[in-house]
């Protein structure tokens, strides 16, 4: 829902190592604030992790609370959670018996991250390609078709797209499996990755098209044409780099979102990722699991924000890194 704007501005050049150090240290208070807000928000929500349709006996609940440390004052639970977190321990899950949150995430994250990374890579290459072609044909049929199709791709919800693709390619044509997961079989990846990559692909195509149209109108591109350079050189060597800056800004939230897994896609396709943990954890008041997922998401988002800022500085030599 929100796009991250680059925080780099014109200014004095700074050594890269110092810049990185500044940014990493600056991220720690942000993460701490995010953990604190989430911790208290989920705690102040009504109901608890051990509420069932049929209430448990009071002494059972008391024993459970004692076992998970819920009987201590809230601020003590908070400080001990932070202490464990500093040691890389996300605590035990409240709903997945005998699993720690660290184990759950360690098992599921590679699945979600692999699918997400492939989807984003396809979206980036495909989206930029489609966007450039549309921009070069600005106002013609190819352009209008791109805009129309991209809106459709953004508008179709994944819980419609994935079952529809499954129906067509799985049940009618028997080309691909509808659901299931074998990490070594590429055929299992096709439908979930397609569903995951279409909306960001369409969005990247629109961003690329809009900024490419701007850049192609600029004076230096006109100069390049006047010098008689071939279109291919002008597009690839001169126009594309600045046109990619809005795409780079969009990448940070897109990567964080896609790599932490999609609840819809993973549930429908039966994939053992982490996409369902955030929603399920919040609904079940599985306190530690929700917090673990929030931390994974926001760490990824902040890290990607840094990568994107470096990327933008590389794309636009006028921008200097500044903490």
């Amino acid at each position, binding site marked *: 829902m929100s796009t991250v704007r680059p925080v780099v501005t014109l200014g004095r050049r700074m050594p890269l190592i110092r810049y990185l150090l500044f940014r990493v240290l600056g991220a720690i208070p942000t993460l701490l604030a995010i953990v604190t*807000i*989430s911790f208290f928000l989920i705690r102040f929500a009504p109901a608890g992790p051990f509420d069932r349709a049929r209430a448990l006996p009071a002494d059972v609940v008391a024993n459970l609370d004692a076992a998970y440390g819920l009987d201590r004052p809230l601020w003590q639970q908070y400080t001990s959670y932070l202490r464990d977190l500093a040691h890389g321990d996300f605590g035990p899950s409240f709903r997945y018996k005998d699993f720690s949150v660290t184990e759950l995430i360690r098992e599921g994250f590679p699945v979600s991250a692999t699918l997400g990374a492939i989807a984003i890579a396809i979206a980036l290459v495909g989206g930029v390609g489609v966007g450039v072609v549309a921009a070069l044909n600005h106002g013609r049929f190819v352009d209008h078709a791109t*805009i129309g199709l991209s*809106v459709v791709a953004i508008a179709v919800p994944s819980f*419609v797209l994935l079952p529809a693709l499954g129906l067509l390619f799985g049940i009618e044509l028997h080309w691909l499996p509808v659901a299931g997961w074998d990490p070594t079989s590429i055929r299992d990846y096709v439908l979930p990755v397609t569903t995951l990559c279409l909306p960001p692909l369409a969005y990247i195509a629109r961003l690329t098209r809009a900024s490419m149209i701007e850049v192609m109108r600029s004076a230096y591109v006109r100069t390049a044409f006047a010098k008689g350079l071939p279109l291919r050189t002008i597009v690839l060597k001169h126009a594309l780099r600045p046109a990619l800056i809005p795409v780079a800004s969009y990448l940070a939230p897109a990567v964080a979102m896609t790599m932490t897994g999609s609840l*819809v896609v993973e549930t429908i396709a039966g994939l053992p990722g982490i996409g369902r943990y955030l929603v399920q954890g919040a609904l079940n008041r599985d306190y530690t699991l929700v917090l673990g997922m*929030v931390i994974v998401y*926001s760490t990824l*988002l902040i890290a990607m924000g840094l990568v994107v800022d470096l990327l933008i500085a590389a794309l636009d030599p006028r921008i200097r890194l500044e903490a």
Partner: protein
Amino acid sequence: MNPPPDGRAPRASGVWRDALRRLGRSRAALGAASALAFLVVLAILGPHLNPNRYDAIDWSCIAMPPGLEHAHWWGTDALGRDLFVRTLLGTRISLAVGLLATLVSLLVGIVYGAVAGYAGGSVDHLMMRVIEILAGLPLIFFVILLTVVFGRSEYLLFAAIGAIGWLTMARIVRGQTLAIREREFIQAAVATGAGPVRILFRHVVPNVIGPVIVYATLTVPQIILFESFLSFLGLGIQEPQASLGTLIASGASEMESAPWMLLIPSAVLAILLISFHLLGDALRDALDVGDL
């Protein structure tokens, strides 16, 4: 402002008149605007044209395909409820929810962004830091907690979604305000002794409204889509009420045996979203605000 001597209404300002003219020349904008107007009218009047009620079960017509020879023009769902009435009612609710949440995000975002940009310095720094922290939290996490607190009051829930979905809007307004702050007419206003609140709302906000309008037209479809995702999780609009999202979610499970249950609400949603996007794009070109 004094009216001109011949009594005509004062002329619209140049920028807006030019933008309106450019908008009128765009076929995509006209098409999108008329499609939206048609859907709004249909959503308001449509349910009254058909004798069926949105929650009435017709036992003789369970899962009836669409057709004009019977009273269920767009067919019925798996419970025998009329899909014409339910789809239009769903359109009404989806539109209301999208507009409501967008309006709230507009109000909060404009005030927050304008204050941050105009105050500048450490206030700006602090306010942007808060946005950075809030943007680091996944939206769905907030929304699930809100559904717990607000429960069945859908409109309150979506007002709340708007109230936490204002981050991008605030960023846009702040950026524009930063650019405007140094302009001569602001200095002139300061020189005449206008206070900060008056300068903010008389001089700054009217000048950042272009990008805000464009972004708002793109926010409405985002909220409508987000509502459909929430409904898929069972957290959005509750039965027997319907939104386009709930209709699509229940239609998706019947897509093999009764494809119209999925296709009809999907088509309406697609038209709605495409129209908003085309209108937003045309507005962006007409107001010349660059990419957002």
